[in-house]
């Protein structure tokens, strides 16, 4: 990997340190709140969801759109790297930022589900799917933002994909394979689960690799 790419990934983590740190802490704290009581659970779950979604949105907006708008893109492109190097640095850098928050949030959530008696283990599969959904969601946001030529388009990508979380919760939750055992004591790692998981991972892989193919064809960066 080009040393410039490595440095740019480090830079991504550095400039987004407040979002990332704050987001990770907020996600963990939300889970702690969720652990307190029934009302606490609702509040905590909501803030947990909001934190992870908001982190994705912020990284998409500040990470990519603003760089273009604030003309620091020209500065980056004046460095000794190729298009492919730039795309790689952006994808890996922003993904690394998101992963920190996502890992903190997901680990905390998993601990809550499988560690606390009050929370039925049956909800485990649903939570796993939700977490992976948000990761795939972010990959799509990144992919879209890297290729959108205008601010409006980038904003649209960000907004629409985040509406997707609500859509997910309303469609996946009621699926028979999931809802049947959601409130039970044992998690059901059934075919519905694996199918949905498979789809999510496929989307994740495609969204993550598409920029590299598209970048190879892109001729103008400004």
């Amino acid at each position, binding site marked *: 990997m080009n040393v410039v790419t490595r440095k740019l990934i480090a830079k991504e983590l*550095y*400039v987004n340190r407040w979002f990332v740190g704050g987001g990770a802490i907020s996600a963990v704290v939300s889970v702690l709140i969720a652990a307190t009581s029934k009302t606490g659970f609702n509040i905590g779950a909501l803030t947990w969801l909001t934190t992870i979604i908001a982190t994705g949105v912020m990284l998409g907006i500040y990470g990519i759109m603003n760089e273009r708008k604030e*003309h620091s893109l*020209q500065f980056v492109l*004046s460095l000794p790297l190729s298009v492919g190097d730039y795309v790689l640095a952006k994808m890996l850098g922003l993904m690394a930022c998101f992963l920190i928050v996502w890992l903190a949030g997901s680990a905390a959530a998993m601990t809550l589900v499988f560690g606390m008696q009050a929370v039925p283990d049956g909800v485990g599969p649903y939570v796993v799917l939700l977490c992976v959904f948000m990761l795939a969601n972010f990959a799509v946001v990144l992919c879209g933002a890297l290729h959108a030529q205008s601010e409006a388009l980038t904003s649209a990508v960000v907004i629409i994909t985040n509406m997707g979380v609500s859509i997910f919760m309303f469609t996946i939750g009621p699926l028979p394979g999931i809802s049947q055992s959601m409130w039970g004591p044992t998690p059901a790692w059934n075919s519905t689960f694996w199918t949905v998981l498979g789809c999510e991972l496929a989307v994740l892989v495609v969204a993550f690799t598409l920029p590299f193919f598209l970048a190879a064809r892109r001729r103008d960066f400004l």
Partner: protein
Amino acid sequence: MTNHKHLSMRGVRKNYRFFTLDDLTLELEPGQVMGFVGPNGAGKSTTLRLAIGLIAPDAGEIRVLGHDIPKNQAAAKRDVGFVSAEMRLFPHATLGWHMDFMKSIYPEWDGGYAATLVKRFNLRTEQNARSLSLGEHVKATLLLALARRPKLLILDEPTTGLDPVARHEVISEFMDVLRDESRSILFSSHNTVDVERISDTIAFIDRGRIVECSNKEDFLDRWRRIQVQLPPGTALPDLPNIVHRQIDGHFVTLTTNQFSEGLQALIGPHVTGIQRMNLEEIFVANVMHHREARGQ
């Protein structure tokens, strides 16, 4: 010793919806300063961006320091410093952070020189990029490029937003670069005074085409304003290379872009004055001339 041109653009074309850069040919030798001038929208920034690989040409060849652009731009950019007046640094990082960033990427980074430039350009390393004024931003990005001591500097309006003192400091640093005959500079500017002063070659672009590209001294030697006072009843003979003719009764002012003693003789004995023109006057006369030729 191989004398690789530092920049070579041949037959380059770039189409945009409302503008086309056509048949662009430009060459820069090591040790040279090329000043690139032209009206707004003529294609200066487009040309410089093509040179650095930010945009790709629709036709033609571009080579920078021997590398094919845009294919091998990563390798070329190791030794090229590109600064544009609209370029911005990462807003939430300090100048000091940027200097460390550059140092980690470029082994040739000269920390001592960078520190000197911070003082000379009146900047502060602890200052966040987003709080820099336009002029300070320009100076900061120039600093980051200069301290790497790149072989080739490609600069798009590098004196934008600079007060006269800062401009003087910046121009001095550019000229210091030229102490080394293996380094070169290509810069575009509206500041014709600076271009006239430090350029070895002047390239003039208008509406997407290079209309002039020559040695500065020759260029300035060719243009003249000639004042003629005609006695009543006389007329001027047919004269070649007159770019502009202004008639006020018996007083005629001719502008020529190919002055010679032969031309002076042709005009005859009624010449009352011959003036050299500065680059700004030539610039305006040239553009007006081309507009008239196009019937505008």
